[in-house]
C-alpha cells in the first residue's frame, strides 16, 4: 500500500504540508533523526511555558536502521512518571511529544496510534503538541488507511489501539462562527518531518 503511493510521493508530501499548514499546523523538515531530535528540543525551549513529556515510542526508521530518539528529547517529565501518576502530572504539563504513525495528503492529517491513554493525552491535554513523522509514511488518500485499520483493529489480538486523525490545533467556531484555536486541546501542533 505504501509502495503504491511512492511514485508521486514528493507531491503527496507537498500536499500534506500545504494542507496541514493551512489548518494552522506547522511543519519542520528534518534531514535525519538527530536533526529531528534537535528541532524538537528547540521547540520545547521556544514554545513551551511549563513541563514537557515525550512518549517512549519515537522509533524512526532511517537508512534501514531503526533508531529510537525518545531518549534524545530533553523533556522535563519522564514518560514513566506520567504512566505512574497521570492525574498528578497532567495539570502542569504544557508540551507533549509523540510519534505520528501516518500522514494523509488529501486531508492534511497526522494519524496517532495510541495503546495507552497517557499516550493519547500527550496530544490532547497539552497546550503544545509536537509530533515526529517519517516522510515515507505519508499516504495520498485517507482511503489508503483501510487495510491499516483492519490490521490494527480487526485482529484477534488482545491490544487494540485508539486511533486519532489530527488536523492541527484544537479549534472552534461556536461563537459567531469566528474560528479560534486552542479550546480544550493544543493551541499549537508542530510536525517534524523526517
Amino acid at each position, binding site marked *: 500500500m505504501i509502495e503504491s503511493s511512492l511514485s508521486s510521493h514528493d507531491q503527496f508530501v507537498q500536499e500534506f504540508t500545504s*494542507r496541514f499548514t493551512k*489548518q494552522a499546523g506547522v511543519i519542520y523538515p528534518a534531514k535525519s533523526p538527530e536533526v529531528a531530535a534537535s528541532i524538537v528540543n528547540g521547540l520545547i525551549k521556544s514554545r513551551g511555558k511549563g513541563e514537557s513529556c515525550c512518549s517512549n515510542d519515537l522509533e524512526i526508521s532511517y537508512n534501514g536502521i531503526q533508531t529510537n530518539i525518545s531518549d534524545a528529547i530533553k523533556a522535563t517529565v519522564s514518560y514513566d512518571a506520567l*504512566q*505512574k*501518576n*497521570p*492525574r498528578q502530572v*497532567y*495539570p502542569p504539563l504544557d508540551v507533549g511529544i509523540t510519534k505520528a504513525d501516518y500522514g494523509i495528503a*488529501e*486531508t*492534511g*492529517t497526522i494519524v496517532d496510534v*495510541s*495503546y*495507552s*491513554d*497517557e499516550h*493519547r*493525552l500527550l496530544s*490532547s*491535554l497539552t497546550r503544545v503538541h509536537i509530533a515526529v513523522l517519517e516522510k515515507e509514511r505519508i499516504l495520498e488518500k*485517507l*482511503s489508503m*488507511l*483501510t487495510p491499516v*485499520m*483492519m490490521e490494527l*483493529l*480487526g485482529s484477534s489480538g488482545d491490544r*487494540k*489501539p*485508539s*486511533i*486519532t*486523525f*489530527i*488536523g*492541527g*490545533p*484544537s*479549534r*472552534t*467556531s*461556536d*461563537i*459567531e*462562527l*469566528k474560528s*479560534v484555536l*486552542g*479550546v*480544550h*486541546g*493544543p493551541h499549537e501542533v508542530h510536525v517534524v518531518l523526517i
Partner: protein
Amino acid sequence: MPKDYSSLKKKITTALENPERGKTLLVAVKRGRDARRDQLATLENPEQFRESIKEIKTSSIENMDALLAKFTKKCEQNGNKVFLARDGKEVVDYILDLANKKNVTLIEKSKSLTTEEIELNHHLQQGKKDLAVVETDLGERIIQLVNEKPYHLVFPAIHKTQSEVAEIFTKATGNQIPNDLTAIMDAVRKHLRPTFLNSQLGITGANIAVAETGSIVVETNEGNARLVSAVPDIHVVVVGMEKIIGTWEEALKLVMAHPISATGTRLTNYVSIVTERLPLGGLSKENRELHVIILDNGRSKMREDPWLKEGLNCIRCGACMNACPTYGVVGGHVFGYIYPGPIGIPWTEEVHGLDKAAEFAPLCISCGLCKEICPAEIDIPMMIAKVKEEDVEKNGQLTPNKILSRSDDFAKLASATAPLSNWVIQSRVSRSFMDRFLGIEKKRKLPEFKRKTLEKQFKSIKEPVPNPKSKIVYFVDIAANYNEPELGVKAVGLLQQSGVEVELSSKLRPSGMPYISYGELKKAKEIAEWNVNILADYVEKGYDVVATEPTAVYCLKFAYPKLLDNSKKSLDVARKSFEYFEYLTLKGDSQNLKKSGKISDSGTIGFHIPCHQRALSSGKFTIAALQSAGYQVKVIETGTCCGMAGTFGLKKGPLGYDLSMAVGKPLFDLFNDESPAIKIIATESSVCTTQLEDGTKCELVHPLNLIAVNDSQKK
C-alpha cells in the same frame, strides 16, 4: 375547527422583530453553504462522492439487523458492554444504575445530538440529585448554562453573540470575562479543565459505529471527545442505531462527508476511533469500562415506513438548515423542537411525536433546496409533506391552504368570468374580505386573468410542421394558460418555427404542487396519476414533454415518480420531460435567437434562478439562450429562495407574506443595489415574478419575451 398555529405565528413574529439576530444567522448559514460549495469543488468528482454517501447509508439501513448483530458481537469480543435501548428511558436507567453502582457524582459529556434527543442530562440529574452533568463542547456548554435547546445541529449556540457568551461565562465562573474571543477561550479552558481531570464517567455520542471491528468514531474540532473518552475510568457511548455501518472502507468516506457538508472542511480536526478501553495510570484496560448503548427510540419503526426511512440516512451535517430559506430567518428555536431545521421535522415526528413536529412543519415552504444540498440526497421535502399530511388528517387544513391548493379551479372560474373577476379581485373591498376571511394577503399583487386562455387559442395557433424534427406535448401551467396566455402562444410559436410539432391536451391538469406543499398527498397523487397516464400515452407515441414553468418540470421529473412509487409510466414520463430552453438547446435552436421587440437595449439582464430550477438545470440553458440572443446576463442570487415559494407568499401574516418578504429581503437588496443598476430581471417562474415585482424596483420579464427566432433560421 382546524389548528391555527397561533403559537408558531407568534414565534415567527418575535423572530422577525429581532433583525440583529436575523443578520447573524443569515451570515452563518451563508458561510456554511459557501464553505461546503468551495470544498466540494476541490473534489475530483463531487457528484460521485455524494452518490457513494447515499449508497453507504442506504445499504446500511437495509442491512441494519445484520449490522447491529455484527457490531454487538465484535464490540463485546473487544471486552466492552453493549446495551440495546428501546427508548430514552432505558438509556437513562442504564446510566443511572452505572452511576449509582460506581458512586459517580461528576459526568462529563462531549456533544451528542442523540443524547439531546432523549434529554439525557435533565433526566440523569432528576434521577440522581448529587450528580453533575457537564457539557464540554463549547456551544453545548453555552446552551446548557442558559438552559436552552440547540439552535443549529452543528453550531448549537450560533444565536449567541460574543458579548452574550462573555456574560454567560462571567456568571458561570464568577470572574469578569472581557468581551474578547481569546479571553473567553482562556476562561472556558480554565473553567472546564477540572471537569476533564476529575469526571468519573464520560459520555460521548458517535458519528459512526463500524461493525467489522466493533469500533466507534467520534469527530470533534475542539478535541473534547478525546478527553472525555480517555480520562474517566468509565466511558459510555450513546449511539443511534442508524449510525452502524459495515466496513472501514465506508467509514473513511463518511468521515470526510461529515465535515465537507457541515463546515466545508475536508476532515474534522480530531477524528477519534475507539475500539476498547486503554490502560491509564497503572489501571489496566480490564479495570476501565466501555459501555456502548445503541438507541432505537423509533428508528426501527421509521425503517418500516417507505418514505420516512430515508431520514435514517441523515449524517447530521446540518447542511439542510444552511440551505433552508425560512430556517435562515427564524432559526432553530422556532424551526425545531430538539432536532432543528428541515430534517428536524420528520425526525421529530418519529422520535417526539406528530404534535411536536406539526408545531414547526408549516415552516417548510417546499422549495426543495434541502434535498439539493443534502449529502445523502434525502428527499426531505417529501418526508415533510408526509408529516404535514398526518397533521392535516389529525388537525384539519387551514382555510388559505384549502383555497390555494385549488388554485386551478379558481383560475378556471376567474378566467371564465374575466374581466369582471379581475375587477372583483383587485377591488379594495374584496381584497379586505379575502384578507380577513380567506387569509389571502391584501398587500400582495394578484395576477390578472384572461378570458382567452392558451387552451382556447391553441387551435388557431397550431401550425402543421412538415417533417417535424420532433414532437412535443406542452404541459401548460396555470400562469401560461390563464394569466399570461400570450407567453404560451409565444412558446408554441417558437417551437413550431424551430420545426417542432406541438400538441396540447386539454385533459391535463396543472401540476398540483400546492397539494404537496400543504400536505394533501392523496390529491397530489391523484393528479400525478392522471397527468402521468395522459403523458405516458404521448411518450409512447414518440412525444417529448415540455413545460415553461420550472415547478411543472420539477413535478414531472421528481415529485410524480415519488408519489407514484417510481412506476414505469412515471419514470418514462420523467425521462422525456424537459425545461423549455433545455429543449430548444437539445434541438439545436438556442443559437438561432435574436433580441425581441420592446426590450432591445436594456443593459445587463439580472437572472433569477427559481428554487425548483436548481434541481433541474439551474437556468444554464436559459442563460445561454439569452446570451446567444445578444444579452449580457448576470445571475443574482443569495443561494436560497426568493421567499414566494409557490403560493406561500400569498398568504396573510407571519406564516405567509411577512415571512416570505423577510426571506426575500436579502435578494431584493442584491437586485436593488446592483451597480450598474439592473433594470430587468428575467425568470421563468410566475410566482417568483410576483415576489420580485413586489420586492424590487426592477421590471420582471419571462425570458421567452426577450427573444425571437432569427428570420433566416426559421424552418
